[in-house]
């Protein structure tokens, strides 16, 4: 009898602990977005948005060149430094185009003139995907949309890149 009672108590205790645990976890979950909300604008102002300095503007030519840069990436478990790349060049009107090298087919890395058989094209070695210089996919190759384009800004002669976004439909 008394054995049984003991068991029940301990089960209730167990439940109690668990619930407190979950509650605490939930409270933390509610708190952290609030905290982030409070801190975020400050961080952004300091870092100049999510833009990262990549290269001096005078190094950019009309020929696409690959530049690597690192960003801080935060996911649910880790904060890590991730290397990103961009193909950057000056367009005919003088504006800068920074293309993401990630193939829009299945995600391999493309390179400018990556195949001898396809001059003046971005080439994807995985399934022979092709893109024109402006990043638009060549019809009848596997990619179905253009390479993504990085947001950019220029400050004190430096090119800063932000997020790569899908090309807006013209």
């Amino acid at each position, binding site marked *: 009898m008394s054995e049984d009672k003991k068991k029940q108590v301990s089960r209730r205790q167990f439940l109690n602990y668990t619930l407190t645990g979950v509650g605490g976890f939930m409270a933390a979950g509610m708190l952290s977005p609030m905290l982030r909300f409070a801190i975020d604008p400050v961080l952004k102002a300091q870092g100049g948005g999510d833009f990262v300095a990549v290269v001096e503007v005078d190094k950019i030519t009309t020929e696409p060149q690959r530049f690597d840069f690192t960003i801080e990436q935060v996911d649910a478990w880790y904060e890590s430094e991730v290397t990103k790349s961009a193909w950057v060049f000056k367009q005919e009107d003088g504006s800068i185009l920074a293309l993401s090298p990630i193939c829009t087919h*299945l995600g*391999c890395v493309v390179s400018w003139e990556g195949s001898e058989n396809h001059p003046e094209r971005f080439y994807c*070695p995985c399934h022979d995907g092709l893109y024109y210089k402006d990043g638009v996919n060549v019809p009848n190759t596997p990619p179905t949309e253009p390479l993504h384009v990085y947001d950019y800004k220029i400050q004190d002669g430096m090119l800063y890149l932000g997020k790569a976004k899908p090309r807006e439909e013209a």
Partner: protein
Amino acid sequence: MKWTRQDLKSYIQAKAYVDTVLVPLIPVSFEKMDEDMIAIAFQKEVLDIMVLELEKEFKGRILALPPYIYESIDQDEVRRLNRFTEKMDKLPFRHIFYISFDQGWKVKEKDLDGTLIWIPVAKDGDIHAKVTQNMVKDHIQQIRDLIKNYWNS
């Protein structure tokens, strides 16, 4: 693609495009001298990075598996690896690459059903040091070219 929930979902959608598997062969053994254990742990770290980078570069065509763990290389181990490979071969993958720093596999290369990419990785170093990074980058570049050559041949 990696052996993750998200990537496997993509893989299942795109099986016809993913014709290559990359299998890292990793020794784990406690029956070694202390320095040797440290060495294989370091080499494993280097190999992890190489696999990660290769997967990134060829995401749409390569499925990078979690490590294939073994203790020592003998005829039994060769058979076990070949049995594992045979199953992948049926799937079908056109290219099955093992990637390893262990000379033991190099010696047994002709008995293996998959293609061995053997990389002589240094036994010691600092994974964060510039020299190591440059060495690793150099290796990656070469393996990348090698894989492309296999694809095009």
